[in-house]
């Protein structure tokens, strides 16, 4: 019994897969790749696969992670090679490495996400206006957003979950890059951050045509940001 940590990207067209679809796609790909999986006991044996974090439908990610329990030790490089050919188009297997025993589960580990969000501008804007909006937004201590919960709409303050925020304009698109909270402490969604920024100067952006990119998932260690794979290397 061993655990393998795999880093992968999720691009077109598979960015449209739900979390459940992604889990199934991995499970099937691992089987096709003949990776020796270890199964749960019971009526309905399932391979033990756990993802770092759910990715919203439609979001491209360059840094996703999954832990897979295997029944025999297997080289990371071997996993990358055989799994890549078994994956549907749009998933790239970046790296794989054995997880020493006793390590925390991925889900409990990851607490930061870095995003880039791109929104088309409806009018020409200068960088200054956009930067002012960001500065104004960051100076506020309370960022109220609405979320649809099981019991209807709830208001949430997300300000404390936003650690970095930068803006720019490229080819008539507003670009925001941010580092936000994710995982068990709570999740901040990039489109919520965008909505707060836009509110400041009533920026004319088309929110129907957003492109969101997750640049990576991280673990904080002191004031360092490490990827879940770097965490293992740093041991």
């Amino acid at each position, binding site marked *: 019994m061993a655990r393998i940590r795999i880093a992968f990207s999720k691009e*077109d*067209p*598979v960015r*449209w*897969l*739900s979390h*459940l*679809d992604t889990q*199934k*796609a991995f*499970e*099937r*790909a*691992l*089987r*096709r790749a003949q990776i020796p999986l270890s*199964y749960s006991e019971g*009526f*309905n*044996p399932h391979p033990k696969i756990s993802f770092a974090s759910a990715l919203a*439908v*439609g979001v491209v990610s360059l840094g996703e992670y999954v832990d897979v329990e295997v029944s025999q030790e297997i080289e990371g490089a071997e996993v990358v090679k055989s799994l890549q050919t*078994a*994956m*549907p*188009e*749009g998933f790239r297997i970046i790296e794989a490495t054995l997880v020493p025993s006793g390590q925390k589960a991925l889900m409990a580990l990851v607490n930061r996400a870095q995003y880039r969000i791109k929104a088309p501008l409806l009018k020409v804007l200068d960088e200054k206006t956009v930067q002012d909006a960001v500065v104004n937004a960051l100076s506020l201590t309370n960022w109220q957003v609405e979320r649809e919960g099981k019991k209807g709409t709830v208001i949430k303050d997300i300000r404390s979950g936003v650690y970095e925020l930068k803006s720019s304009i490229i080819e008539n698109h507003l670009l925001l890059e941010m580092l936000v909270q994710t995982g068990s402490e709570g999740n901040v969604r990039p489109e919520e951050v965008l909505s707060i920024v836009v509110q400041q100067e009533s920026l004319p952006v088309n929110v*129907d*045509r*957003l*492109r969101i990119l997750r640049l990576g998932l991280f673990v904080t260690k002191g004031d360092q940001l490490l990827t879940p794979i770097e965490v293992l290397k740093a041991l």
Partner: protein
Amino acid sequence: MNQEQISQILEDELLNKVTKPTRYTGGEYNQVKKDWSTVNTTMAFAFPDVYEVGMSHLGLRILYHLINDQENMLMERVFAPWIDMEEELRKREIPLFSLESRRPLKDFDVIGFTLQYEMSYSNILNMLDLADIPLWSYDRTDEHPLIIAGGPCAVNPEPLADFLDLVILGEGEESLPKLLEAIGNFKQAQGWRRDSQRDSRKALLRELAQLPGIYVPSLYQPHYNDSGHFVSIERIDSTVPAQVSKQVVADLDKAYFPTKSMVPFMGVVHDRIMLEVLRGCSRACRFCQAGSIYRPVRERSMETLKKQAEELIQQTGYDEIALTSLSTADYSCVEPLLKDLLQSHEEKRVGVSLPSLRVDAFSVDLAKEVQKVRKTGLTFAPEAGTQRLRDVINKGVTEEDLMETIEKAFQGGWHTIKLYFMMGLPTEEEEDLEGIARLAEQVAYVGSDIFRSKGIRKAVKVTVSVSSFVPKPQTPFQWEPQDRMALLEEKQQFLKKRIRDRRITYNWHDSKVSFIEAVMAKGDRNLGKVLYKAWENGAKFDGWTEHFRFERWQEAFQAEDIDPEYYAYRKIEYDEPLPWEHLNYGVSRSYLVKEHKKAIESELTDDCRHNKCSACGVCSSLGISVDLRGGDHGQNSDRL
């Protein structure tokens, strides 16, 4: 709009607005994306229902990979867009496109619809409209693709005849590649589609009409009497075949079957490997259209199936194999195959499932084999409530069979039993309905008794689903009228009041849907305008309860001054002409008449697989024979 523009809008604006975006993205593992410049003929397989239904269709899987394995042709897929997507497409005037290349359907040489169910006909019209292709075949020119169809409802395609350029009768494994080849050749020789000024479409269709199994409706002219009733259908001249015969694969074991099969991302209805163990069924239930359409029975060998299963597991990564066919328990090697599959793939935790069970102890034994631990429900179809009526429909099931089966199931640890019945069958009386209720109760009592004696505290659950009988072409009941809607509803209420037992859940079907199904199933070409009108009135997804609106159809019949009751409720005399008799499905008229007469007398007919040939005519008329692979079942193999 070209493929790049469509792709751009899809990615940027549409996919984030619709439910279940992977219905439209394509990109599934084992999807085939061929280079258009390397092939002669391009075809889109169009399933007139939503993605998760269409991707469960085995026929699509077979034809898709078959055509894409040919060098000179390609096939892509398209499904009916769900309501939300349709709205977005119409709003932006985006033409319906294929999943693979995202090209507009108009770019293809051929668009092929599968006819699985009469209630999806309105979706065919809607999809053509969304593709910006003229609906009526005579409005189409060289600019437009050929619109073709195949599948079980091709047995009577007349209500669709004016919308289709051609129809393939029977199985497509051999005839479709030949058809596409011929189209490709014609294209090269005659410049079809390259020159919008020329109209070579008619010439092409005439040429294709010469191929076996190809029916070109425009080359056949129906005639009606003064009251607008069908009297005959004739070819327009003698260069066209008078009759078109269904094509079947003679040796199923050697027939093409894909093992690099696609793996959908979203959960589809049948989300597992479909391993087709046999085709056809000769149990000869008299209401069953599939029995006639897929005759004769042909099996695959164990060796072939084992090899295909192995490859499919490797190529798809699925953890479940369904052994599919019309009646898998009838497969002559079912037991050894099951055991072998379970054993060979145990390490990979691959399970096996059996979608269809007979009402007998043997089937429960098989189910025990596959559901060792996970005991989900078991489903059986006695179809009628009394022995007399079961004999009428030739369902060779006795009450003892049923009770023995049920007992075995409860003893085996199952606690949910589903029973399928039909109401409105020919000769049905109140006691037959009463019989349904009584059987269900008996099943529940047997279950409770067994549970009590075994000290099991779980409650017994019996679900009774009663559909309404729809008489279908090429069956012994094709001459029978359907029960009137009001009567069916009365019968449904009777059962609802009658079934009081809390262990029993009773379901029934909307009689209005069954009525339209009956009209379309036995319809003639006159119904094309009704279908068109109903579609104009908004009909689509008629097979979905939440989208079916009877008024749309009623208004359409009224507007076209066509009496639907004439089609559904009329008792047809044996000597009356039938709108589908120029299409030969092999089963002879005299056999159907004989079976119909035997039905009225409650006389049984044996399964020709193990007993004597019942002279249905299929084998002699198509020049093939029953093909069993179980060795000791071969006593009928010399019947040609």
